[in-house]
């Protein structure tokens, strides 16, 4: 063992190792986004019930209120982040071919990012539109 690695603490030597190479980061991110989504989903489902059968003008007016666009952007962002983390675990659990697994994870992550971007942009376009 070199002098350099002896200078490191035990924790520093093991950090980043292990089969996942990332510790609990993924697990923690999944839980954090879940906690963020709890109130957002309750607000969202109540809003959709309230908007049942609403016409275009009513939906636009709703997305121009001060609170709705902020919460909708938060919901879309946290939702697709949570989805991407969850789908990645499902892919890693059931797809055993390395190349297919990597391709699916890349498609999932980029697809979720793109969908979230379209959702957020649409909300902002309505909120700031004339």
């Amino acid at each position: 063992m070199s002098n350099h690695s002896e200078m490191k603490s035990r924790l520093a030597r093991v950090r980043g190792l292990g089969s996942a190479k990332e510790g609990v980061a993924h697990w923690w991110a999944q839980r954090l986004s879940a906690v963020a989504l709890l109130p957002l989903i309750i607000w969202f489902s109540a809003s959709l019930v309230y908007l049942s059968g609403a016409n275009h003008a009513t939906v636009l007016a709703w997305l121009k209120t001060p609170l709705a666009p902020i919460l909708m952007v938060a919901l879309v962002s946290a939702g697709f982040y949570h989805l991407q983390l969850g789908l990645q675990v499902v892919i890693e659990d059931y797809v055993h071919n390395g190349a297919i697994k990597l391709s699916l994870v890349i498609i999932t992550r980029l697809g979720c990012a793109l969908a979230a971007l379209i959702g957020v942009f649409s909300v902002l376009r309505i909120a700031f539109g004339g």
Partner: protein
Amino acid sequence: MAQDNRPLSPHLQVYRPQITSVLSIVHRLTGIGLGAGAVALVVWLAAAAAGPRWFELASNMAASWPGQALLLGFTWALFYHLCNGIRHLFWDVGLGFELTTARLSGWAVIITSMLLTGISWAIGLSKVAGA
């Protein structure tokens, strides 16, 4: 590869289904289904931003019977994933692991998710009828 010859743990189908395992699988399935629901939400938002004609097209699709069936499925999946997600968060902090508690909370998730689905559709449909 040498790794391919390693012994595997028993596969899922050798175990008798129990409420804990079935709900765990349903949590994953509803999560995947809600991915489609999230895409539907983005389509709805994009249609609303694109203008009244696009919004009308999206509304008509949602009002058709396959659209309504899908929305009903998304509603239940959302409430199930929400309720069972709360159950998982309690487990994450070490609470509710006793077998009787885990079974009881499982049944609570099933009943609550169905109740919430029924209540929201009852209110929603009465609003549509009154509009």
